[in-house]
Structures are given as structure tokens and as C-alpha cells.
């Protein structure tokens, strides 16, 4: 008995190592790709010293540091954050289709951004500052988060909460549609481009904020792995095992909300990652234990976004493809193949 458990832990630690190594490899590949060709040795040198080598082009250092490195780090941070949020929502709602967007946070952010872009006064800005969009998106997420937390204190069961989240999403989306109908084409285009999601264009301050958000959200999720595991047997069993179900639910909602909200604020609504990564990861680690799943999903999310970003650059044009068009295009067939092959969701 003891032996079996220990073997399994070792097996899963091995899987975690595989994921970590894969993430680092993709990180390196992502750094080396781009419209300007920079040798790998020079990239390593730039990363280590912060400067280009003597013989190298000083512009290369700027490209790697302020463009490629920020983008690759954003892939890791956003992928990890969205996937952990998705895992928490799937466990909390016991629903394989739940993802970070079920709380309506992305829709809230979308509405706030739409208001900023399309409301007559704000629409005067020809090229809205990215930070303005980020602020608007954060406020939108936060507003929905407060509504959801208030509803959560009143509603006992998770399914009702799920429906409330979806309804908020539906309502905000329809307001966005109305705004789109009333707005001019140029304003609408800016909004639509925002909804495509983007991993580039974050500055170092924003990356620091996103890092803090990921650390905080992951720490909150980790502090509740006992509750997340116990929930697998249902609310009543969880309570009978001494889990404070109400408080744990609040902590998990808060964690998922800041993770999703943070990413949406800076990168726009990135679809699909949050739903797909937990399923893909469970196939590799094949466990329900959140002590393994949380870190595994963290690496898995980073890997998926790095991979998508690499594919987005493969055409080798200066223009990269929109991210949201790619995540689902790459991820959906994989998930379908995996489910058909296994005939059963590993929930």
C-alpha cells in the first residue's frame, strides 16, 4: 500500500519534470524565432549578461530583451494563470466544460473595453493607450468578480453559481453587441483586435504585475488543494472531512478571478487554454490529486501558449497571426483526438 502510493508520486514527479523540460525547450525555441535572425549563442549571451556580445548587433539585445523575452514570459505567465483558473473551475463546478470564462470575467472585461473604445467621448482617442485598455479590462473583471462573490455568499450550490456566471457573460456580450452596432467601424475594429488577444506589447512593469498575480493566484490555489481534492467526492463528503466548503469556495473563486482578470486585462480574452489544458494535462499525469495537477497544469498552460506563439511566427512574416485564432485551431483537434481515443474524460 505504502509502496504503491510512493511509486505513483515518483511517477508523477517524473511527469512534472518532463513538462518542465518541455516548457524550457519551447521557451528557448520561442526566443530564437522572429523576423530578425539572431544566433542562439548570442541570445544566450544577451540573456546572461543583459548586453549583446562585443561583435554583436546592439539592436539584437533590445529585440531579445524587450520584445522576445517579454513575449515568451507573457506566454508562460498567461498560459499558466489561465490553466490554473480553468482547473479550479472544472473541479469546483464538477463540469468538464467549465473554464475561466464561466465566471463571466472575460465578458466583463470585454464590456469595459468596449465602453472605453466606443463610448462617444472616449472614442475621440484615435489610438487608445494600451494601459487604458488594461485598466478598463481590470475594472470590468473586478466588477464581475464582486458580483460573483456576492452571489456566491447567497447561493448554496455550485450549479446555480455556474448558471449565474454564464448569464452575466451572456448579458454583457449582448451589451457589447449593441455598442458595436452603434459604433463606427474604426472603433469596432480596435475592439475586435483586442478580443483576438495578444501576447506581445507587455512592458516589464506589466510582466512584473502579471508575475505577482500568478504567484498569488497559484498560492491561493495551493492553499486549498485539500478542499479541491475533497470536492471530488462532493460537497457533503468534503464537509464531513472537515473542509470549510464555503470559505474554500470563496478562496478558489478569488484565485480564479484574479488569474483570469490579470491575464485578460493585459492580453485580452484568450479563449480555449483554460478549458483544454486541464484535460490534456490529466491525460499525461492521470491523477486527480491537485497537489500534482496544479503544478502540472501550470507547466501545461505555459507549454500550449509557447507552442501557439511559435506556430504563429512560422510563416516568417512580420505580421503574426492572431492568438485566439490559433489556440483553438491547434488545441481543439488535439482535445477531440484525445477524447475519442480514450472514450472518457478523465475528470
Amino acid at each position, binding site marked *: 500500500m505504502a509502496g504503491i502510493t510512493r511509486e505513483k508520486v515518483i511517477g508523477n514527479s517524473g511527469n512534472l519534470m518532463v513538462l518542465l523540460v518541455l516548457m524550457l525547450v519551447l521557451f528557448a525555441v520561442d526566443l530564437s524565432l522572429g523576423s530578425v535572425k539572431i544566433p542562439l549563442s548570442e541570445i544566450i549571451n544577451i540573456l546572461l549578461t543583459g548586453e549583446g556580445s562585443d561583435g554583436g548587433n546592439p539592436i539584437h539585445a533590445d529585440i531579445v530583451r524587450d520584445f522576445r523575452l517579454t513575449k515568451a514570459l507573457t506566454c508562460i505567465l498567461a498560459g499558466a494563470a489561465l490553466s490554473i483558473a480553468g482547473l479550479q473551475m472544472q473541479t469546483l463546478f464538477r463540469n468538464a466544460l467549465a473554464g475561466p470564462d464561466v465566471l463571466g470575467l472575460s465578458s466583463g472585461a470585454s464590456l469595459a473595453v468596449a465602453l472605453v473604445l466606443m463610448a462617444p467621448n472616449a472614442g475621440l482617442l484615435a489610438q487608445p493607450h494600451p494601459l487604458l485598455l488594461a485598466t478598463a479590462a481590470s475594472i470590468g473583471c473586478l466588477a464581475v468578480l464582486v458580483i460573483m462573490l456576492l452571489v456566491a455568499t447567497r447561493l448554496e450550490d455550485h450549479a446555480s453559481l455556474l448558471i449565474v456566471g454564464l448569464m452575466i457573460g451572456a448579458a454583457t456580450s449582448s451589451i457589447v453587441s449593441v455598442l458595436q452596432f452603434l459604433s463606427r467601424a474604426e472603433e469596432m475594429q480596435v475592439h475586435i483586435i483586442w478580443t483576438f488577444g495578444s501576447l506581445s506589447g507587455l512592458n516589464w512593469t506589466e510582466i512584473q504585475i502579471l508575475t505577482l498575480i500568478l504567484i498569488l493566484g497559484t498560492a491561493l490555489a495551493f492553499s486549498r*488543494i*485539500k478542499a479541491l481534492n475533497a470536492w471530488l467526492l462532493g460537497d457533503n463528503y468534503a464537509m464531513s*472531512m472537515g473542509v470549510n466548503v464555503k470559505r474554500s469556495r470563496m478562496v478558489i473563486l478569488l484565485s480564479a478571478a484574479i488569474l483570469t482578470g490579470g491575464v485578460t486585462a493585459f492580453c485580452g480574452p484568450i479563449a480555449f487554454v483554460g478549458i483544454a489544458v486541464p484535460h490534456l494535462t490529466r491525460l499525461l499525469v492521470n491523477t486527480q490529486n491537485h497537489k500534482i495537477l496544479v503544478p502540472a497544469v501550470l507547466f501545461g498552460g505555459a507549454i500550449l501558449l509557447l507552442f501557439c506563439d511559435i506556430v504563429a511566427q512560422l510563416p516568417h512574416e512580420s505580421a503574426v497571426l492572431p492568438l485566439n485564432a490559433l489556440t483553438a485551431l491547434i488545441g481543439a483537434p488535439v482535445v477531440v483526438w484525445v477524447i475519442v481515443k480514450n472514450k472518457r474524460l478523465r475528470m
Partner: protein
Amino acid sequence: MGSERTFLTTHNLCIGYPAKGGENRLLTNLNLSLRESQMVCFMGPNGSGKSSLLRTLAGLQKPISGSVSFPGADHSHRVEHKIAVVLTDRIQAVNLTVEEVIAFGRYPHLGWNITLSNTDREHVTRAIDQVRIQHLLKKRVYELSDGQLQMVMIARALAQDTPILLLDEPTAHLDLNNRVEIMNLLRDLSRSMHKAILLATHELDLALQTADRIWLTGKNNTILEGLPEDLVLNGSFDEIFRFKGFDLKTGKVIHQPFRNISIQLIGEGAAYLWTKNALERNGFDVSDVRQPISITVLSDSSSLRWSVTRSEGVEEVSTIEELITSL
């Protein structure tokens, strides 16, 4: 008898749930106790509040008034260290392994990072041994039969290492063999582990034969409590269940002798009882005294035969089917 410790008592407990314009009181004025090494079967019609009481005792639901206390509480007052439950809730995470499910029983004893110590592992192993499901350890929940899953959930509750075990209809949807196995297992556990076991059940016959005490709901929103035999003889069961066509005192379904034919039956043992059953089921009145028709069960070591004596003569048959046809 009488030296067992009391593990749980209720004081003027009133249970139910909030409803429009007040509350819906299901059971009121409960002063009950659960004692060491005792198996109590909790019976009553559907909707009489059995599950609600179990949930209230286990701290999953707030009482409307009154309280539940644990007199023997030595070092911990936390309910999860006192009571383990087996509920009717379906397990939706069907990809869990049996081993993982049982290890959940140790959660009340673990910190936030849920690392099993050697002591925890010993408790898990012991629970598995007690329920004798070593062969199921590596299976996943979706591979188990209903009976196997119930055994796993009982093992999980045992691993929690609590003095009290509450089970909500643990034998529902199981076949006879599994039902008997689970009832016997629970009775043995109450003796060998000195646990107080309370199970809500509809298994009247099994409960009467295995329970140390019976709690009976259904009259004036309170609970009648006593030895099973006393409750049978004083008519409490009849009053509450209002049996239709079942005589509890003999443990038999009541048959109407609609054929108006009386038959004398002579014999002994199982063959006698089953012959009587077949005759009564087919509407004959079976009697011990001399009647126009008389049947004798002839059993020797190798075979069973029946001889039917009528005014016309004597006939011998070798199965009950032939016997019934000949009548």
C-alpha cells in the same frame, strides 16, 4: 452490558429545514444517544427525516434548535474526528482509484499539504483489511459494481478512525448477498472496533435480525427507540408502517385462503416449511389437524417425496409442482 461509553447525545434536538414563513420541522424533541459497540438501525417511511437527522448529527446541516454533543470527547471537539459518514451521494469523479478514495478518509487528520504519514498509511491499510477489498485497490471507481463501491465508501469512513459511523441507506440498490454482507460487516465492526454505528435503512428483516437497537420515526414527529423485539411486540412497527398484507410478528406475508380448502400437512424441517409456503401461496388453508385431504412430507437421506391422502386413495409425487397440480 451497560458499561459501554456514550459517544453521542442529543439534547431537545429539533431538525428540519427553513421554509417559507418559518421552518419545516421534521423531527422534534429528540433526546437520543449512541453508545460504544452498538449498531442502531434507523427506520421509518420515506420523507420522515432520516437523512436530515443523519446530516444534522454529522454537522452537515444546522439544527433548528437543540444540540448534539460528544460526551467522551477527549482531545478534539471537531465533528470530523468524531463522525465518519457513508452517504447516498453519487461519486462523480469516477476516475479516482479505490486507494485514493480510501485515503480521503485521512483528510481530517492532515494539514493543508495533505501528506500521508506512516500512521495514516497504517489506518488506510487496516481499513482495507477490515472490509476485505485488497483486490480492488488499483481499480478506478467506474470499474466497480454498486456493492463494491459501497464497501469502498465504508472503508473510507473506517480510515477516518472515528468512534461513530453514520450510514445513509448503505444497502440500497444492492442484491441480497451484498445486503447481508454489509449488515454483517457493520455489526462485526461495531463489536470488534467498539464503534457506535447508526444506519438509516429500509431493510426491515435484516435490521430486526442484526440491530442492537432500533430508532423508529413517524409518530408525532419524534423517534421511538428500543430493542427490535420490544418494538415488534408492542406494535410500534405496525403502527408506523401500517403493513398491508404482512404480519411482522410471524415475519410472513399474509395469504388469503381463497380456495376454501383445508389441507392437513405432516412433516418437519425445511421441506415442511416450503411445502406450507407453496400451499398458502396458492390459496389453501394449511392446518395441523385432520382434514379431508392430508399431505405427508416423506424425506429420507437421498430423496424428497410427498404422499397425498384423499378419500379416493393415496398418490405420491416427487416435486412440489406436481403436488400443487394434483390438488
